[in-house]
């Protein structure tokens, strides 16, 4: 019973506690170790004395004292005891019983600062998302390693290196200066996008780490709360909610991917959609349109559909892509735009567009082959479509997409046989 409460509290409040400790002591490792130590201590203490009145507050206070003890030991080793931080009365306080240190609401929310540290441009790009998930969301290294398809040892080394870089290079434990804010905020948002993409990708598969999509929802909520004037922050919060709202419809009974236009809106989650709508409304109120607001608008257009019998919103989707294209002419945007283009203008127009793009993608770019295969299938060219499906399947898609591609390929092969 107590252990269940402990693991829930540890999971829910770890980001807040680790962030507060990190800012207080300006040391990520110390914060992490102290929090882990407090959780360890809670296992026996809570069993003995019962669950404290304010479990997160208990963990924070115990962790704080452990950090101070660790600092003192470190200083003694270094034979310099002149640090004023260490001469405070807390050091010599006897071990207080849990009831004495119960005080609600004393943990300052420093998560925004921690997010900015984890996503600092001086931290390697590969490490930023992992470090954020570890420190701000409290995910275990083994869960993160699984989501990133890395060995746990490799991931741990990456985290260690990133934390050492932050300490050695002198990354400030502050939110960025105003002149650095836009660039730094963009790094944070990109990091969250990478982290969410991992969670989203996986959800279509086995679903073993789908759990941490919840952390991304929480992170984007916190970020939106702390930076309510940033359109792109609100847009990202909307975007992940629209995408998560559709999760129950993303796989069919066999575990194969269901394309957006065939997803049944009846099983989407209306509460997440209305949350997303509210973020989207606020994000659009600023008058400037960033890339994440466009992405959110695409999701929103789909989420407006109420019923499978309703025609898919292809015209709206195409219009949004046209707008996006006018802001950022990029081959991936053009490729995605080819899908609604085929629906609204025609399949041959979409195929022509794809031909003009072919040289801009590396030959192992899976989405290109998948889109092309589908267009060839619908253009009545099953043999060419079959080749394109083969090319896509050879590129090792995620299990749900693989199943779907194979099914489509099977159907064009039977068309070839009929011809």
């Amino acid at each position, binding site marked *: 019973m107590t252990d269940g409460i402990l693991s829930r509290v540890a999971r829910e409040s770890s980001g807040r506690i680790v962030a507060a400790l990190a800012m207080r002591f300006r040391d990520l490792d110390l914060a992490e170790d102290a929090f882990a130590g407090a959780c360890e201590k809670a296992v026996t203490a809570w069993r003995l004395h019962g669950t404290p009145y304010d479990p997160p507050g208990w963990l924070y206070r115990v962790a704080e004292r452990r950090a101070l003890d660790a600092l003192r030991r470190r200083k003694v080793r270094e034979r310099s005891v002149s640090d004023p931080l260490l001469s405070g009365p807390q050091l010599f306080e006897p071990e207080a019983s849990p009831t004495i240190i119960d005080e609600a609401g004393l943990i300052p929310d420093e998560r925004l600062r921690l997010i900015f540290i984890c996503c600092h441009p001086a931290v390697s790009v590969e490490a930023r998302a992992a470090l954020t998930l570890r420190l701000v969301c409290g995910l275990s290294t083994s869960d993160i390693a699984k989501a990133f398809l890395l060995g746990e040892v490799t991931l741990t080394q990456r985290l260690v290196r990133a934390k050492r870089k932050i300490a050695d290079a*002198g*990354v*400030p434990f502050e939110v960025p*200066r105003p*002149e650095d804010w836009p660039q730094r905020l963009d790094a944070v948002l990109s990091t969250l996008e990478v982290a969410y993409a991992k969670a989203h990708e996986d959800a279509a598969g086995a679903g073993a780490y789908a759990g941490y999509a919840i952390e991304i929802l929480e992170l984007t909520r916190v970020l939106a709360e702390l930076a309510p004037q940033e359109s792109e922050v609100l847009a990202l919060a909307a975007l992940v909610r629209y995408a998560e709202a559709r999760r129950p419809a993303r796989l069919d009974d066999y575990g194969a991917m269901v394309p957006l236009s065939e997803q049944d809106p009846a099983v989407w989650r209306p509460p997440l959609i209305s949350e997303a709508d509210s973020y989207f409304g606020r994000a659009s109120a600023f008058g400037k349109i960033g890339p994440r607001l466009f992405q959110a608008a695409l999701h929103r257009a789909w989420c407006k559909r109420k019923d499978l019998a309703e025609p898919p919103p292809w015209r709206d989707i195409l219009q949004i892509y046209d707008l996006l294209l006018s802001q950022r002419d990029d081959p991936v945007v053009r490729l995605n735009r080819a899908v609604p283009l085929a629906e609204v203008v025609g399949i041959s127009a979409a195929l022509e567009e794809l031909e003009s793009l072919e040289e801009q993608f590396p030959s192992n770019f899976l989405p290109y082959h998948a889109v092309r295969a589908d267009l060839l299938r619908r253009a009545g060219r099953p043999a060419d479509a079959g080749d394109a499906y083969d090319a896509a399947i050879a590129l090792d898609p995620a299990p749900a997409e693989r199943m779907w591609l194979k099914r489509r390929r099977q159907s064009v092969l039977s068309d070839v046989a009929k011809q």
Partner: protein
Amino acid sequence: VTQYMLLIYEDERIYGPDKNGPGLEEIVAKHMVFNKELGSARIGGAGLKATSSATTIRKNKRAQTVHDGPFAETREQLGGYYLIDAPDLDAAIAIAKKVPMLRDGSVEIRPLLGGL
């Protein structure tokens, strides 16, 4: 406050042979202005003569050998440095972004050992 070394890498050929070309005067003038701007944050700094003037001592096992030329042949060469005081990396980055360069180049920011 940490001390940071800013190592300036540029393609030295743009300053002419032996760094005697017209580009040098231009960049020196820019560095004078930058030095003033740095004020007390500047602990030290200098431009370096071209890598053609470099001599490298290599030590392996017990032998020390002396070689003509820089430590490594690269497209951009270490051409000068600043030693600065900065409260943190963001402040050092802000300063490094202002280091004058004639064309393309890089500034590597390295905290000094024991600078904390």
